């Protein structure tokens, strides 16, 4: 409970948060904001969910490492 416990890699988490901000923000979003389909589904929709899943997975891995 105190600070002697190995604090998880805070920088790691902050970096992931920042990565999320970049993934879900302008201008990266504009790159995928095109009226096209990939594998039968809209590009933007596919991109958002894939990026989202990847971010969640990365946080899960980071958290697993902490504990």
């Amino acid at each position: 409970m105190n600070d002697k416990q190995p604090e998880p890699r805070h920088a790691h988490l902050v970096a992931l948060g920042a990565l999320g901000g970049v993934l879900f923000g302008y201008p990266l979003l504009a790159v995928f904001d095109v009226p096209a389909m990939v594998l039968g589904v809209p590009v933007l929709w596919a991109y958002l969910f894939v990026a989202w899943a990847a971010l969640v997975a990365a946080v899960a891995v980071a958290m697993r490492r902490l504990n």
Partner: protein
Amino acid sequence: MLTTWVIAAVSAAYLGLLFAIARYADRRADAGRSVVSSSWVYALSLAVYATSWTYYGSVGRAASTGVGFLPIYLGPTLTFALGWLVLRKIIRVSRQRRITSLADFASARYGNSALLGALVTIVAVVGVVPYISLQLKAVSNTFTILLRYPELASSAQLGRPPVVQDTALYVALLLAVFAILFGTRHLDASERHEGMVAAVAFESIVKLVAFLGVGVFVTFGAFGGFGDLFEKGAADPEIAALFTLAPQTGYGAWMWLTVLSMLAVLLLPRQWQVAVVENVDERHVARASWLFPLYLLVINVFVLPVAVAGLLRFGPNTVDPDTFVLALPMAQGQQALALVVFIGGLSASTAMIIVETVALATMVSNSLVLPVLLRGGTRHRRAGQPRGGTRYLRVGAGPRGVGGLALAVRRVTIVAVVLLGYGYFRLAGGASLVSLGLVSFAAVAQFAPAILGGLYWREGSRAGALAGLAGGFSVWAYTLLVPSLARAGWLPTSLIEDGPLGITLLRPESLFGLSGLDPISHAMVWSMLVNVGAYVTVSLRTRRTPAEYAQAATFIDALRQPAHAAGTRLWRGSARVADLRELLDRYLGTDGAREAMGRYLGGRGPVPVPNDDQLAADEQTAADDPVRLPKREQTSVDLDRLPKDDQHAADDLVRVPKDDQLAADDLVHHVERVLAGAVGTASARVLVASVVHEEPLGVDEVIQILDEASQVRAYSRELERKSAELEAATAELRAANDRLRELDRMKDDFVSTVTHELRTPLTSIRAFSEILLDNPDLEAPERGRYLEIVVAETARLTRLINQVLDLAKIESGTAEWHIGEVDLAEIVRDAAAEGTQLFTGKGAELRLRVPATGPAVAADPDRVMQVLLNLLANAATFSDARHGRAVVQVRVTGGVARVDVHDNGPGVAADQQQVIFERFRQGSRATGDRATGGTSDSGRSGGGTAHSGGAGGRAVGGRAAGTGLGLPISREIIERMGGRLWVTSAPGEGATFSFTLPLAGHSPAGTHYQAPGESGAEG
């Protein structure tokens, strides 16, 4: 099937199930076997974030803005990526101070300011009521729509049922009952409501399953999967427009929605309740930080498909997109699925309403009503009584203390909030689900500067927080609330169109001419500007009180300091135990007071801030086993005082410190914390101050104390670091010393072995020379034979000395290397030709498996030859005595050239495989003595003549003939040329000595050739 009474009965059964689950969980909690103490339940309870807004409203929003609904769910993902840092800090602080709500938190951070707590409460209530009305609206509408089956009605056609027939009202009242039963069980609001949490977690599962059910049905049942659905949608230009952001949602609006949801997922009262107050163990945050976002991801996968399907099926403007989720199964005649969908929506609404009202009730009672009541009481006392008197608030004293009053306030608040929500829905509920929700989000976002700033910014002051919150809230009300009231017909619409008094610059939806933004972004821009601006500027311009200083420090350093340090040292004064006890009696009731004292005695000493286990254990002890408590050091019984303590004299006999004693600092602190859990931190401070002779600390003193504490912390951290460094240095030194000793020993061994090895040939040379000297008339053939021996021994001596010198040269790096591109196969053939005699002499066979033109390697050919001859000699010596056979193979594997020399001798035992590469360590081959004996013999017989090639002796075995340096030298050579030399062997199956060399052109950056004076390295 979908008749009124069926729907009503199923709904009632579902709500009954919720009551049962909550009751069960509470029972389990009372028995000490919690069902909610799990990170899974924690993550599921956080999913109370997904309300009927998510359930119905997301599809509605997706039908008009496409993927524009997603930021509301992406924001929480970002927040929870940082959850371990931010949320855990909030939880830690709240646990330390028994903070029970958002308002309490704000008040505690800024010097126990009751005013700030009250303001936060008002903002929360005003901001959240529309959100509650949204839930009731969803319940009411979907119920009516379901009733009209098979007709599909749009919201406009629904009309409003009279109040007495409105389902929403009954649902609202039932939920109020639920919230009262399971949300106001304890006076101490910092205690968890396990029944409520269990029910909410259960509801999260129900709504997820129901929504996925309808999603799968629509996508794969009504249509042929995602591809089919999106393809049909893409054919319609209006639907295809939903697949991109560009026309409907600007990137600015997208960003603001993301920011809003990032803040809302922490600052909505219900999120705060489940994430902070109901948190069992802060470690649960770790799993929740990915599981909760995952939940949101999964529940949103089908939103856009369902919206597209709805638009395809119904076209625009016939069915309200907010009800597509329900209308699609109905249109397909799926009555059972429609009912499941309705229940899912009900679960989304009910979970939200229950938690939200409980959270608001705590805030209203502890941060709004009680402070007002208590303040009145204490002011009265202060006017008429000397300090230290105990005549304060007289309301509600009794077995439950003033606490009874607090609980009553909470219960009334729950009913009031639910009815307010219902009223808002009846009067102004025309807007779509999402726009109602966003208005609430924007309201709670106003807490962000004060709360989050307070966690990280030391200078943030009470005045700053008040100014920021008040300013931000006013702008919010003006830019979002006023227009929505005007649209509902409560205010003239000219206010929106022309501005107040016709001043167009002040139009609420384009303030100061800022236009082109959607209303939410517009409101956020202005409100955040005012809020953050006021918070920062006012904070910088005000002097903070000592209490503010102290609390800023404990909040900001929450994760860094040992848990029990919080606040204990920042108090100086004295209080009588009797006064403190009376305080507890009055406010917690006699039972509560006894329990609180018991807990104090149970954890005597500096009161540790309990983590959950301790807390649970403490409470368990206090509740189950009052007799056990008094074991610790107690004051002896003062018989004279007995009659006065009428009510629980017997208990007091043994447990409580003497009444007229002065209380220890930690007791005072404990009492304040216990009271904080019940009546809020601001009121607790006031109450304790009323009985304590407190010597106010000046700002300077507080700063000094804090500085000392942080300095001590810094020193101890420094000390720890130093001692760790010292330890590491010591370990390094020890290792170095060990290595030196080992080297020294090896040097001694080396010298003694070399001298020994030199003496053997010298002895025989001397012996034969003496024979020749003493017998000058020896026969010529005999003399010739003796001389031959002398020459051979001299040659051996020379060879040994050469090898020692060679090894020394290689090791010291002064050897000359002539690295060039050479054909490895050619060298192998040459070496084999030269070494054949070793084998034929012994009757053994040597086979080559070498390509015609071998791999070109970067190596020194003479050195490679030396190694090969060495290995061949070795193989010849050790191959089987009768059917000796050796195989040499050359190939390219894994980007390097590799040579294997295999013999069919006895092999090298596993424990010898490293030893044989050490100098003069002629390992015994194979395991048995017999094998060693055999090889020694053969070695001896090969003796003096076998190695006249001069390339080097054998290393292994053959004690008499080998120098014991062959293999170490070979390994040195190969490693210097960037390769590896090793042996693989299984006893009885022979041994394989293998080495690798880098292919020409792949030279490993020359790292092995750094020897000084190696002029011809590349020539």
